[in-house]
């Protein structure tokens, strides 16, 4: 116990301030009312769905919870079930084999729900494109609110996109 406490004290708090919202990532206008967006902004629950990524995007989504980005500190956390989620964070081109599962996860998410497509593959189908096995971009399967390009996007870019999805149309 003592070495653990010593380590915690020695390292201290390394968390960095959250980046600014990047409105350029929006695929649609904000559908949430300003009041609702302000509410969600302080308590957003995300369900991550990997629809066929190379797992590079997952590594960067994991990094969001490291002590530098510390996503939970700004009220955003990941849930294990779409039933508990306000937002689906979807990576990958949608593999044909995952199409039904993605649609079911979307249907299981209660309204009002947001969808953020992550990575070049999620935004455009990326290097895998569309084929017998790939449906291409996420928007080909479910409606998308925000698209975060990058291969993979950095944790800061991910935060900018997630925050853009819940930013009120008119800032308070």
């Amino acid at each position, binding site marked *: 116990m003592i070495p653990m406490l010593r380590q915690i004290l020695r390292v201290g708090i390394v968390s960095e301030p959250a980046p600014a919202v990047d409105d350029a990532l929006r695929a649609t206008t904000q559908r949430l009312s300003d009041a609702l967006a302000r509410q969600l902004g302080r308590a957003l629950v995300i369900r991550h769905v990997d629809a066929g990524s190379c797992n590079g995007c997952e590594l960067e989504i*994991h990094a969001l919870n490291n002590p530098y980005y510390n996503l939970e500190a700004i009220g955003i956390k990941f849930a294990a079930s779409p039933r508990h989620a306000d937002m689906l964070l979807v990576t990958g081109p949608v593999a044909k084999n995952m199409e039904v599962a993605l649609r079911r996860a979307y249907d299981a998410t209660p309204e009002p729900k947001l969808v953020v497509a992550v990575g070049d593959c999620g935004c455009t189908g990326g290097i895998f494109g569309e084929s017998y*096995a790939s449906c291409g971009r996420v928007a080909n399967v479910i409606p998308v609110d925000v698209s975060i390009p990058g291969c993979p996007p950095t944790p800061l870019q991910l935060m900018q996109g997630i925050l853009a999805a819940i930013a009120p149309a008119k800032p308070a």
Partner: protein
Amino acid sequence: MQFFNLPIDFKPLDDHATLTCAARVSGSELLAFCGAAHQAERRLVALWGSDERDRDAKFGYALHVAFDLADGLVCLTLPLLTENPEFPDISLPFPAADRMQRAVRDLLGAAPDAGDQRPWLRHANWPADHYPLRRDTPDARYETQNEDYRFVRVEGDGVHEVAVGPIHAGIIEPGHFRFSVMGESVLRLEERLGWKHKGIERRFVGMGLSDGARLAGRVSGDSTVAYAWAYSQAAETISGTMPPSRALWLRALLLERERVANHLGDLGYLGNDVALAFGLMQFMRLKEDWIRLNARLFGHRLLMDRVIPGGVAVDLDAAGAQEIIDQCHAVGREVRNLKRIYDEHAGLQDRFLATGRVTPQLAKQLGVIGLAGRASAQHWDLRCNHPCQPYDQLAPKMAIERDGDVAARALVRFAEIVESLRLIERIVSEMPPGSIRAELRSEPDKRGIGWIEGWRGDVLVALETGADGKIRRGHCHDPSWQNWPVLEHAAIDNIVPDFPLINKSFNLSYSGQDL
């Protein structure tokens, strides 16, 4: 050349970084070779098929099987009849071949003559007689059909099934696990994978030789350096290009940095899975420091597209080298400190020890490779067994444990971090000067194989060009093919809540095996 005193004549292939031999064989010769290789305790590396109907009307398909022998890599090619492309089942001596054979059947329509006949990568999303790797199959998408997959049922009083996935509860790739349980105890686990199949092998067809590296680097993003290096080796063989020495040293630097980054992350998550959030936070902090330096020095956090056919895309100056050495010292100190904390943490050790055990005997029987194999006393590490430049001058030490449990797989990771830090320091201090890239020119109708020890195990990339010099067939093999079936055994007799921990201790790639 001949092996195991069998009358099969192998031809050494030119320009391979590791000695690579090939031979065309008959079905009975393949079976005899498999038997001899199994007897000699060698292992299966990969198995894949190809469509050759444009070259040979009678033998329109081929099966390729690669083995790791004491001398190097050998690749056996079995021509298959166009009319009835059937090949002998080799899953008896090499159980890991089973799913690879099923994948060949799903993608190419050449089937094993025995063994499991259920589909593997085909999930009723294309017709059963539609084979995506046949050149004349249209690249069309079909409506999803309902098709029953026959899981093996465990019956008896009080047995029930727990079905998990494809979407798992966490930030993790999709797969389906079917547990048959009695109370909390797992009687049987059956995996159903292939959810991420996105047609990578078909995508390779027609790509330029240099362009394919980007795709290979995205077969499994966490092993992007290993794939890009293996792909580059194969492409350089086709082109007859020898990359400059400095480029090879830089590749080893990037590969070891990839290894350390993944091991740091895994050690954090192993802590997290036994409710030690402290471990997750500390290791994820170290990993973030580590990959931030990647971004600063090499321009990409995960090092994607830094290894390119012909050499590398990035160089390192003296100031960068010093930063790397300083970071190795700092991370080495921190990891030693955290290892002491893990070692002495009774709660963590209680969950790690004897959990998800794969005995050396079982590991040998199933053909476990890579990191998980080394945790069960399987001495497979290409960097030591068949070192290519610069590993032949670095003499890496193989990390071996015998217990085969979660604790052993954690210990192998700790040992490999320490060893990789030592290698990185040596690489940046002893790297020869010179250029970092040689020209690459594609040659028509040539083949090449690349083989690299990634952090999870050995990655193999087999390439072949067509008459136009474009890629005709590209096959990427992930070590997860060998190790996924082992997880089914590791889970037996453990409790369901320990499964996430056991799964994490293997940390296998879904994307890499789903292709």
